[in-house]
């Protein structure tokens, strides 16, 4: 099946074919057995892709099932005295918030970082060739949460690789440093991930959060404003707004 024919079939099945071409195509489909066979194979190929996609989602379902085991809500009947204590605690909390507004309280940067930082899992390791074994070793160790080993392998990979592999090495090196509390080193690694790439977007967000963790609010705000002004970071806009609202300006 030629590339051009693939395009035609794709256009036809997605309804993107111009009406006059569509009429011609359907006429041909009825009279040309080879074309009909190609369309049939194309549709089956598409179904195989959906099947593989479903298998992938099923693997996510398996993980989610294990992760949420034992988290079902349990109904607890509390005695009136306990309810009274809860009400008193809430009243005290409200009083505290009124007397000490947000601006005058110490901002817990670690807590804020933990709330907004979500690590990207190292699923891409499966795409690597054997020749990239150091990178694979780094990603596997990252996945297994052996962060020190991951840092050693990924640093080695970052020194010897280029292109997309270098990008991957630096990105997961940054995340490994984050996990081991080496936030300054994480900043340097994330900064090496090129802008405009998928990992570049996540890196910029992680850099902003790393500055938050380091209590460097001016730098954090600058990163967040850059994210906010760039449409490519659309998925982070809402969260950037939230953080810009929370972080002190000084």
């Amino acid at each position, binding site marked *: *099946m030629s*590339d051009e024919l*693939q395009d035609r079939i794709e256009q*036809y*099945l*997605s*309804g993107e074919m111009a009406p006059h071409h*569509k009429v011609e195509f*359907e006429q041909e*489909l*009825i009279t040309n057995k080879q074309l*009909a066979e*190609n*369309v*049939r*194979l*194309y*549709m*089956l*190929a*598409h*179904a*195989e*892709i*959906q*099947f*593989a*996609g*479903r*298998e*992938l*989602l*099923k693997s*996510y*379902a398996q*993980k*989610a*099932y294990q*992760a*949420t*085991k034992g*988290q*079902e809500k349990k109904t607890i009947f509390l005695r009136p005295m306990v309810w009274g204590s809860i009400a008193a605690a809430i009243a005290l909390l409200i009083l505290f918030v009124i007397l000490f507004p947000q601006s005058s309280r110490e901002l817990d940067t670690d807590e804020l970082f933990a709330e907004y930082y*979500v*690590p*990207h*899992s190292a699923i891409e390791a*499966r*795409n690597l060739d054997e020749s990239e074994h150091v990178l694979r070793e780094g990603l596997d160790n990252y996945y297994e949460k052996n962060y020190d080993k991951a840092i050693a392998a990924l640093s080695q990979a970052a020194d010897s690789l280029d*292109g*997309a*592999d270098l990008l991957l090495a630096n990105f997961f090196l940054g995340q490994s440093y984050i996990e081991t509390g080496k936030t300054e080193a994480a900043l340097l690694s994330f900064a090496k991930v090129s802008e405009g*790439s*998928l990992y570049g977007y*996540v890196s910029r*967000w992680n850099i902003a959060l790393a500055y938050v963790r380091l209590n460097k609010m001016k730098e954090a705000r600058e990163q967040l404003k850059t994210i906010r002004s760039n449409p490519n970071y659309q*998925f*982070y806009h*809402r*969260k950037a707004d939230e953080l810009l609202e929370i972080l002190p300006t000084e």
Partner: protein
Amino acid sequence: MSSTFQPTNPRSDRDIIDAIKAGGRHKEYAIQWLMEEYGKFMHKIQKKYGLTEEGVQDAYTDAIIGLIQQIEKESFRGESKLSTFFYRIFSNKGVDLFRKNSTKRINTVVDMPPIEDPSKNILSLLDIEDEIQNLNGFLDNMGDNCKQILLDWGFWGYGMAEIAERAGLKNADQAKRQKYRCLQKLTKMIAAAQELE
């Protein structure tokens, strides 16, 4: 919420819907997030309908696919919370499975390619309904690169530039050529398997 899947935490139903409609990485992250976020429903449905672990995971997967389809077709109009809407779909899948349990057969959801209504009559001549019920999992035999490219393109809806980046290819043109080759390889595998039957 702790996460193992995605680099972001959408905060509203609108975030999720927009991300799924946008396709590509937004869709992938949103679906991964959804699957983890709604995961707790599995235990409730499993208990309610007496399903096996495997069975409830199947029903959950199919319910997520159903939700994606409803969002993409704009059938979900936001009259209820997305989680409520999903729970309804999932509950229906649970009931279906409960009813089918006597035959111990689980039907998976694999959709036909998007086909415009006027074409359906012509395409019905191709008679592929039965074959779609007996898929082979050929993508697993294609090598990681082809599998990733075809999934990115045909399942997640990534653009060619992003596919190039994810697959370590030079540019969108190279990704497109690779996609052609992978798709061709897949159709040949399907054709060869059918000749053997």
